[in-house]
């Protein structure tokens, strides 16, 4: 059964370092996501694992086998391309049975596999259809079926849902997840959509500029981001600039702009250090009553957006910082634009990061 190990893998295209000294271990039967913005190197990493390109440095293992010099056809993988890459001159049946045929399976066995996988993706009735006659969702299913029919235990998916409508995308991501779990496969799924990665993955590696910033379960990444970028990219965060004015107990007192002091639970910061305080939108408590206490900041509602499940408020704080707060739409009363409010947050639900050398804007930039 295949696990995948990458040891100090680097890939350059001319002067651009697409993958920079990446080491990862993807466990057997794990559903693993490579998540990051466009151009972060996630697809390059997937293509390195598939053998479609070769690393400049480092080692890639599939199972116990070092595969650096093994061509893609001998790596025993299935690959689902973002554009599906269904062969336009073959119908669904010939696309699906292509893998068994080129691997030299006898006709009967190839046919049995073909029927099984088409049954699995519920497209048995369209086996005569050519790719141009299929909808996006159907093409995606055929692409998955084709990859599965090749008999691989490792499935590599390169933004497989990227070309589909939101509704179909949501349905299919769970369908693929279920199928892979039922078949006991290992899957590596590349996506730039954090909600997709969080919904289906056992673990996620967040990438930026060719490097892996953090690997963890969706909960770990959300609850305990190790960097400003991860806090920004996984879910949503408000970033408030300030200085550590005092170290106290388990945390520190942070002085925000406008001499507003708030308490945060954190480690490893020094008094006087310039920091960024990150607070998730749903962590804030909003009250109409004006309060003057620790971790209470007053502000004015600047914009209200109804998003269905949630209501989103943009609040201008008294120090002119802008924060975004999200509240369930069916709980409690709504606030109106122009209304004066007080916001607060529990100190243990904040994250404190050293102020980035390149500046906050550059640190959270996704392009």
């Amino acid at each position, binding site marked *: 059964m295949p696990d995948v190990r990458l040891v100090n893998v680097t890939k350059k295209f001319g002067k651009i370092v697409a993958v920079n000294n990446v080491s990862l271990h993807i466990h057997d039967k794990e559903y693993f996501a490579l998540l990051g913005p466009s151009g972060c190197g996630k697809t390059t990493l997937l293509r390195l694992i598939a053998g479609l390109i070769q690393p400049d440095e480092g080692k890639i293992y599939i199972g116990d086998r070092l595969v650096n010099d093994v061509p*893609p056809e001998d790596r025993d993988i299935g690959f689902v391309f973002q554009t599906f890459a269904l062969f336009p001159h073959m119908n669904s049946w010939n696309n699906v049975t292509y893998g068994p045929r*080129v691997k*030299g399976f006898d006709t009967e066995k190839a046919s049995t596999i073909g029927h099984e996988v088409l049954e699995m993706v519920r497209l048995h009735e369209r086996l005569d259809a050519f790719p141009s006659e299929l909808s996006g969702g159907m093409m995606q299913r055929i692409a998955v079926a084709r990859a599965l029919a090749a008999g691989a235990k490792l499935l590599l998916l390169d933004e497989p849902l990227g070309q589909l409508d939101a509704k179909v995308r949501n349905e299919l991501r769970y369908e693929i997840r279920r199928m892979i779990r039922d078949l006991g496969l290992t899957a590596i799924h590349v996506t730039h959509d954090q909600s997709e990665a969080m919904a289906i993955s056992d673990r996620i590696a967040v990438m930026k500029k060719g490097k892996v910033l953090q690997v963890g379960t969706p909960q770990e990444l959300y609850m305990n981001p190790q960097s400003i970028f991860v806090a920004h990219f996984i879910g949503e965060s408000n970033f408030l600039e300030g200085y550590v004015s005092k170290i106290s107990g388990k945390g520190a007192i942070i002085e925000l702009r406008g001499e507003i002091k708030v308490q945060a639970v954190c480690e490893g910061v020094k008094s006087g250090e310039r920091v960024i305080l990150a607070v998730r939108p749903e962590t804030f408590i909003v009250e109409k009553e004006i309060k003057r206490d620790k971790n209470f900041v007053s502000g004015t509602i600047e914009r209200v957006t109804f998003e269905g499940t949630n209501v989103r408020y943009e609040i201008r704080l008294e120090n002119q910082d802008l924060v975004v707060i999200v509240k369930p739409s069916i709980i409690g009363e709504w606030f109106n634009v122009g209304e004066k409010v007080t916001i607060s947050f529990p100190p243990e639900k904040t994250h404190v990061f050293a102020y980035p050398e390149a500046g906050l804007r550059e640190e959270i930039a996704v392009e």
Partner: protein
Amino acid sequence: MPKPKITETLDRLSSKKSVKYGVYLTAVIVFFALILLPPILGIIIKWNTMQEVLSQPELTVGALNAIGNSFAVALLVSTIDVIAGVPMAWLITRGKSKWLKILDTLSDIPFIVPTAALGYSLLLFWSGSSGLASLFGSPLVSPGWLLVILLHFTFSYPVIVRVMVGALLDYKREYEQASRTLGAPPFTASRTVTFPILKPSLIASFILAFSRSLSETGATMMVAGILENGNYVPLFENGATFIQTHLGPNKEITGPVVFASFILMILSCSIFIIIRVLGPRLKTPIKKVWPLTERKLSYSAAASSRNGISLLTFFIFVLIPSLFVALPAIEAILGNTLPEALGGGGVWGEYWQSLLLSYGVGAVVTLINAVISLPMAILIARGIFGKKVSGILDILVNIPLIVTSAALGASLKIFWESFAFVPETWLLVFAHLSITYPYLVRSMSAAVERISFDLEEASRTLGAKPLGVFRTIILPLTKYSILSGAIMVFTRSVSETGATLAVTKLRTAPVVIVDWVRQTVPATPLEIGLGCGFLILFSFIILLALRLIVRGKGRY
């Protein structure tokens, strides 16, 4: 900057439906009146003269044999072209060596070297005493059918390479990569996925190579016969050379010429239609796979051998024979021939005049072509008169490309001769216009098809009139294709011999070279070498210009 008044007026006019359709309708009328109908009407005018041929069975059989030879050579050569050219195109596009860019450029050389110079170069290399004979003691190939095949291979091979390099570069590699990840070794992936997908390009390149072989006349005449006591004796005859040898003493169009032209035109069009209709239906064996054998063919020894054979074939049969004429040219430059040539004495006076005529006619033909073919290209690409009409026009514009140019020239001469007021130079221009018309239309219509219609619509929603859309969107985005097409028209016109010989007594540069080689006009080997050398030099300059211009393409 405000628009000049004339531009504003033209923009406004272009919004009127009557003006828009008027322009496109004019393009269609010009195509029928100037390009398509004259050769057909020419044959009809002289229809009666064919009786003369049919009443002489020997002449009929001779004509049919020559035409049979034309198609046999074209079929054989185009097939060998595909077998040899496709691996070369693969090597150029998929190889990793930095030298491949140079190889890519080198593979274009025989494509743009005028065939008259190419013919003489091959004659020297394969049959001349300074060529392979100096290595092996005697010439390897004597003039005749084998040398004709070698010649046709040399000049049609780059057509396949060029088309297939383009097709492979445009090809979405993901299909092949998908095939590899599903377990197919490289050979299986290319056999079952890449080439079946590229079948339309393969068919197109085959048709181009086939028609190029059918059309070539001047160089074929050089290598198809020998000189005996100063007289040219043909040892092999094809349709194009048959037409030349059966022209009257003052280039009158005789019955045999009309007969051969008619049969060549009918057969060319029929074969073109058969290939166009049946080609896409041709099934390639993609279901059956031989995993072990194909795996062996995919790696190391087999792949290296394939690349080695491709390179050897290219150098021995294409590049070295094409450039072999450089030897006498250099000898001429080092000796006394160059000053003589530059001084215009002896045979050179006529040579320089012929060169001026060739480039002059080439320039006029290119300019007229640009004006008449642009609206036709847009009409085809955008389906202005509906998809069906566009489809039919798309087939019809290809006809001058596939019909043997000597046959086209002969029939055009009959037609235009009936208008006594048409001067001979214009006859030449009309003939070259007919032959080169498809190049610009095809190049431009393909470029327009690549432009998303959204861009045009965006431009219209921002306030541009139809002419403004053409000026500001289509023209800037297609200018490199227009330039490439224009250069193809120009070089083809400068190279053309068959139609030139058939329509006029005016002597263009390739005609002069053919006469020198056949000693109709006595010239020394050094003079012929230098004459060819000049033609090749100018062709190199044109290729360089093409490369420099097309390089800018990446900006879009």
